[in-house]
């Protein structure tokens, strides 16, 4: 099964990170993430103490919004083009397909965000310790964001105005990740990282099943 799934995963990863067929690739969320980090100091002023106190939260909000950006191209185009039907005929379970897609989505947006985080940290004058916590937090939290994103993409695929609805649905579901991610940067907030990881794991465990059921229900 894993062997047969490999070409599917490679295709997912290529489409999501390089972008084609109206899929923007990994660059778009990355630039968006940096743009938010760049805009924030303009909006609140260059006071380093204020920036350092609020910066980590901004990074998390930016990461969340960057994860929402590619939602409408995660599942919908392949559903529309008949790929999921063809995979189903070949005995692939929707759960395995979505797991591959979550992994590909995470690699194409989570890892670029972690690479861009030091730059954002510079713009928001976070110190090295805070940056380290942000990076660990992103490492633990972005898989959860990817899982929630793919589930919602599967749920809203085929709906009219699905992409707008997807964004709206994602925000409340990702709140726990945001709270624990940003909270881990407060003094004595290290416990937040453990809760962040727990939220991610729950999302990862549920997502393939919820998304798979959504795709099957969409066929009726």
């Amino acid at each position, binding site marked *: 099964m894993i062997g047969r799934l490999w070409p*599917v995963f490679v295709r997912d990863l290529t489409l999501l990170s390089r972008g*084609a067929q109206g899929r923007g690739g990994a660059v778009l969320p990355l630039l968006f993430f940096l743009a938010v980090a760049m805009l924030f100091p303009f909006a609140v002023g260059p006071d380093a103490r204020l920036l350092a106190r609020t910066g980590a939260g901004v990074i998390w909000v930016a990461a969340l919004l960057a994860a929402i950006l590619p939602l409408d191209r995660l599942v919908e185009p392949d559903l529309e*083009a008949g790929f999921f039907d063809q995979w*189903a*005929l070949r005995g692939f379970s929707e759960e395995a397909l979505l797991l591959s897609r979550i992994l590909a989505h995470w690699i194409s947006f989570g890892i670029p965000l972690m690479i861009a985080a030091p730059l954002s940290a510079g713009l928001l004058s976070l110190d090295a310790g805070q940056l380290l916590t942000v990076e660990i937090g992103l490492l633990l939290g972005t898989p959860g964001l990817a899982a929630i994103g793919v589930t919602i993409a599967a749920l809203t695929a085929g709906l009219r105005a699905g992409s707008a609805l997807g964004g709206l649905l994602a925000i409340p579901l990702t709140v726990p990740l945001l709270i624990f991610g940003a909270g881990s940067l407060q003094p004595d907030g290290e416990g937040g990282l453990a809760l962040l990881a727990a939220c991610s794991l729950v999302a990862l465990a549920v997502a393939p099943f919820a998304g798979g059921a959504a795709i099957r229900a969409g*066929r009726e």
Partner: protein
Amino acid sequence: MQDCRLVANDIACRRGDRILIRGLSLTVESGQIVHLAGPNGIGKSSLIRILAGLLRPYAGTIERIGALALTDERLALDGHQTLENALGFWRKIDRASGSVADFGLADLLDVPVRFLSTGQRKRAALARIAASEAPIWLLDEPLNGLDQHWSCMAQVAINAHCNAGGAVIIASHQPLSIERVQTLQILDYAA
């Protein structure tokens, strides 16, 4: 090719509030071609999806021995990829070893799929199914968009598949010129 068999027992098909088909049974075995005929909207495509296991029948059961291949109006080929790579993706998944039956596509292999014409796309879909090595073919309007020559060639390929021990179910409102085809008028089962 291994023996294959697709049996539908007493199928009913419902779309929305309407029951389209009721009490339909059919059996297709190695070497047989069944033509599901009928006017637009009678439920041919829904029936194909039921037979493929993608749609749950409102009533009845499906039994199947052997792998399935399906082509419908959705191509399942990446538009930005060249035809060779797009077909190659499915060949990798199917672990197909034989050469792609060419369907006149040899000159088009380096053309991105989104630049292909309607008829060329249809031929690409048939090439995908021919390369899949699945014994049972479900073809939904396989001749739509094909010119006379390629319509003929497609039917030759379908016939050849059956000679090799495959089974084919074709949903089409167009008449077929294959001799051994058994026609099933869906209108007779309309609810």
